[in-house]
């Protein structure tokens, strides 16, 4: 059997400020390569918290996390940074761009960090991703000159730039209209089926979720259905 792209085993997360609360309670699941999975659940049930752990940014949890078969608990901070750079594309709940840079540069940065391609190749590839999301005309603008929806699409383009193993999104279509939301869905679908990339997308949009391969439903920090 193929190693799953991502596997979570008995993940428990506490917040201790101001009082100790268990936000994630024994979360276990795995996602195979090329699978398009959505995560749904009520606001405050721990979806974002889970995603931060899965994306290796949050290291304070109990349980185990395997990405591409590797145990993330065994890696130090800079190795985790490399994993994020190479294997994970993340789209935040509130699109996060670097205002000091142009739209194009924002998309290019993770690839420049990875340094596998030349500058020209990276620029070309970044333009491709922007075209894919229909915002190639904004490439030269500063990031803060875009609308909310445009920013979100730039953030998606940036998540795709290194052709990551897994793309995680925390409501990546939250700011998009129906038409653009459909476009993004189609792109995701295509990445999963053609590029064998794995998608783990948190959404409030039931219709969006229904079209994915699998739905993981959470309640009070635990998975109730998958």
């Amino acid at each position, binding site marked *: 059997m193929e190693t799953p792209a991502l596997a979570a085993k008995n993940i428990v997360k506490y917040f201790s400020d101001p009082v100790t609360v268990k936000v994630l309670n024994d979360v276990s699941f795995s996602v195979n390569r090329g699978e398009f999975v959505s995560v749904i659940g009520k606001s405050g049930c721990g979806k974002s918290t889970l995603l931060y752990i899965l994306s290796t940014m949050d290291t304070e949890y109990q349980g185990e996390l395997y990405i591409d078969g590797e145990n993330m608990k065994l890696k130090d901070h800079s190795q985790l940074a490399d994993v994020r750079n190479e294997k994970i594309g993340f789209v935040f709940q509130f699109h996060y761009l*670097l205002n000091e840079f142009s739209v194009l540069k924002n998309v290019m940065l993770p690839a420049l*960090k990875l340094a596998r391609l030349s500058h020209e190749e990276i620029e070309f590839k970044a333009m491709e991703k922007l075209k894919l999301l229909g915002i190639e005309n904004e490439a030269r603008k500063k990031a803060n000159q875009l609308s909310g929806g445009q920013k979100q699409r730039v953030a998606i383009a940036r998540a795709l730039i290194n052709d990551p193993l897994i793309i995680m999104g925390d409501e990546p279509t939250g700011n998009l209209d129906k038409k653009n939301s459909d476009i993004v869905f189609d792109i995701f679908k295509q990445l999963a089926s053609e590029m064998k990339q794995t998608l783990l997308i948190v959404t409030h949009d039931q219709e969006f979720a229904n079209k994915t391969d699998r739905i993981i439903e959470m309640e009070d920090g635990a998975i109730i259905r998958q």
Partner: protein
Amino acid sequence: MKFALIFDIARSLMLARFRQTLIAAIGVTFSITMFIALLGFMNGLNSLLDGLILNRTPHIRLYNEIKPNEKQPLLLSEEFRNSYPFIHSIKPSGGRIEIHNALAIMAELKKDNRILGVSPKIVSQVFFNSGSVDITGVINGVDIDQETRLYAFNDYVIDGKSSDLKLVPNSIILGKAAAQTMMLNIGDLVQVTTPTGERMQLKIVAFFQSGLQELDKTQSYASISTTQKLMGKSNNYISEIQIKLHDMNKAPALAKQFAEIFNVQATDIQTANSQFETGSSVRSIISYAVGITLLIVAGFGIYNILNMMIYEKLDTIAILKATGFSGKDVNRIFITIALTIGIFGAVFGLLLGYLSSYGIDQIPFETEALPTIKTYPVAYNISFYVIGGVFALVTTYLAGFFPARKAGRVDPVVIIRGK
């Protein structure tokens, strides 16, 4: 990870906060400028003052001192061999103040490669008689060529030519102040009387002005042979041998050595002029202290600005980390910012420091006492520039170190969740 990318990101962050960055760099520039100008000026002043005395002073003087004989007759007596004598009222004996075998000693010293030059000297008290006035003074019999070569004698000759001392028989160079008192001019004759009563008319060929009134009133120079003639001594009479070394710091050790070898008294410049050394080093310490204080203040400026920048750029740092930049990368970005500010500040500071040194160098500064000085003295020592540059980089690095470390430790989750 490639430095080009780090630098690119650092540059973008700096451009986004251009004005603060500029102000930080100006702080460094200002302090380096002051550092260079201050040190240059202080050291210029130091070498001027040192030059006033030290450059004209031999590093080692060999001479015979009039003092009681160490071997008193009593000690030679068999009878008192085993006793400890107390002798009262000993008087100096054998008033021979010339150096025995001086010419041979000089010939020997000239072969020593630690020595830059050796010159003979005869010193005698004299009276100058002009009309009915008698002035006490000192005549120095010197080898004028050596004196010029080793002790910059010509710097202080303000009228006439010192080389005439060799060419004109029975000639003398008088201090300007003494000449003024006696109302004498170049070409005039002055009568010189030695303590033993010998007299001679000497022709004035030049005036000197050393800047030290005391010397200008009493000292005079004549050739060795003229002085020997004046004193009625033979031509191997030399009362002092002056030595200038390549390295002044070796003077104390060599003085001891020569004293033993040649059986004479020897004084080194450090012992003779210790107060000048102290003055110079105190002035240097003050200027370094002020310069370094300025740099530290500039360092705090950079520290503040970087801290502020990091606070403003928390989002940027979080996103860089989320997309795969490690804490080390982020740390390097901010160190790069600090060092860029340091390098730009230092380069302009060194440049402006040089220009302001040059400016000070142009300001007229004329004083009776210092005939060779026309403008304020400034030292252009490459080591000030090196120290200033290195210290600027070290300070900015340290100023960047803690903010950069803080930036490297920013937890992206806290920032991203906080939105």
